[in-house]
């Protein structure tokens, strides 16, 4: 531990948080745009700062893309009235959005988003129990939702909170079990080591496809995205746990949801799709030059954004599951499948050794 370490860590934290926030802001835009395209619409294409009128070609093009929409959204969230309904449990009501954002932001700390730039490893905390850390932090995410539901003192948010606590515990188990084959194959809990193994042997999705599928579905459930968005099912529960929230507190829940999406996309890329590696142009080895390091960061971002798009895309493919179907799927389909998967992988490894 010395000063260099502390300074570089702080810089990395600042950059990663900034980038994640940026991705979150623009994934809201992407969500709106992709939804629009799938539904034969155009999507946000008007918002622009006043001076954009005077920029030729580029100005109208960027406006058409809706690049400035997130800024307007953010501003709107900031200046809206922050309303606290009567009868809420004030402390929890104020605490809940923060409690839901913090774990979402903490998860990205252990994810290696690049090999190295110079002597610096491109990961904030190179823990040797990286995966367990992620699962632990993800499991804390439920508190925000449960507290929001409890604090609102209103029946629909309460239902949302109760549903989400049951849903998240259930799918956490499938999620944890689905990763075990990966750990068996690699033999390490460190995410950096897992990527290192993949650069030598090929992507893990080829070795454990069932794991990937279960992990992906479970992460949909963990981030409360369709088809598992029961905690906020707007047709039944108005808005679920964030019904009573407004202004920036409401925005924080959105921030948490999208940060969770970023984190689980990053986890999927790291665990199953080789992280920052690509199997050609020598991109599968830790970078020697600065340019290579930057390129690998962009490879990671590209892979991650692909999964973000999948998250958004899937939203328009399926209707929402019913609550009993959700539980049935989690406990009676994915859990046995994951267990069988562990068994098969273990036997396969045993036969090979």
């Amino acid at each position, binding site marked *: 531990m010395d000063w260099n370490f502390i300074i570089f860590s702080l810089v990395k934290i600042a950059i990663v948080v900034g980038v994640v926030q940026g991705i979150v802001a623009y994934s809201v835009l992407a969500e709106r745009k992709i939804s629009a395209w799938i539904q034969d619409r155009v999507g946000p294409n008007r918002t622009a700062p006043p001076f954009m009128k005077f920029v030729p070609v580029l100005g109208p093009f960027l406006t058409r893309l809706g690049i400035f929409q997130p800024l307007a959204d953010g501003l709107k969230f900031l200046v809206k009235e922050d309303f606290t309904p009567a009868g809420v449990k004030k402390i929890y009501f104020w605490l809940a959005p923060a409690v839901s954002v913090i774990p979402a932001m903490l998860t990205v700390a252990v994810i290696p988003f690049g090999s190295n730039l110079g002597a610096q490893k491109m990961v904030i905390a190179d823990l040797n129990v990286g995966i367990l850390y992620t699962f632990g932090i993800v499991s804390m995410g439920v508190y925000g939702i449960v507290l929001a539901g409890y604090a609102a003192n209103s029946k629909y948010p309460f239902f949302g909170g*109760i549903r989400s606590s049951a849903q998240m515990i259930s799918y956490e188990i499938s999620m944890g079990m689905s990763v075990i084959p990966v750990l068996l194959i690699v033999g390490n809990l460190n995410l950096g080591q897992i990527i290192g193994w993949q650069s030598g042997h090929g992507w893990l999705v080829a070795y454990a496809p069932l794991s990937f599928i279960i992990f992906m579905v479970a992460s949909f459930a963990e981030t409360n995205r369709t088809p598992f968005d029961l905690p906020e099912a707007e047709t039944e529960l108005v808005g679920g746990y964030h019904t009573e929230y407004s202004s920036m507190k409401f925005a924080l829940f959105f921030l948490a949801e999208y940060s969770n999406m970023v984190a689980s996309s990053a986890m999927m890329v790291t665990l199953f799709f080789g992280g920052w590696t690509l199997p050609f142009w020598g991109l599968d080895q830790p970078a020697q030059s600065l340019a290579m390091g930057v390129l690998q960061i962009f490879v990671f971002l590209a892979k991650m954004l692909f999964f973000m798009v999948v998250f958004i895309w899937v939203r328009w493919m399926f209707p929402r599951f019913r609550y009993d179907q959700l539980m049935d799927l989690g406990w009676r389909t994915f859990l046995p499948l994951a267990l069988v998967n562990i068994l098969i992988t273990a036997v396969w490894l045993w036969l090979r050794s």
Partner: protein
Amino acid sequence: MEQINNLVNGGAVEDVLFYVFAALTLLCAILVVANPFSRSPVTSAMFLVLTIISMSGLFLLLHAFFLAAVQILVYAGAVMVLFLFVIMLLDLKEEARRKIKFFGLAAGLVSVGIVFSIFVKSLASLQPEAAGPALEGETYALGKLLFTQYTLPFEIVSVLLLVAMIGVILLSKRKLE
């Protein structure tokens, strides 16, 4: 700068962190048991979550990384959510503040005194720190130990889990046929 570096390398930061985490743990634990501001079980549960998190900080200082993660994952992530779930399900009202019974207080203090005497005795018979290489949080070694020397307890615990699961399912059925 030099001095600070020495301090950092000499473990002073870890000592400070120990005091911070220990204070947090104890403070939150007090608030679990006796909160002067709220009698709601939800508050107790939330402070227990904080206790557990700061305890996993202590585990980190003890270089038990695996256990720190498991502590958060199992205790804070599952057990306490279960607690919250049940509290909300039962819709417990804030309980009225009742008079502390003299008998209860006396019994409590006596039992704490007994525990304290055991603690003092055990401190007296404490051996100086054993020699040997310091253990880092070796997940691998832990797993190896778990599946070789402790295989039988491991199996028994898994059977216990199964039994607990069946028991809970039976208990939570509304009617036993």
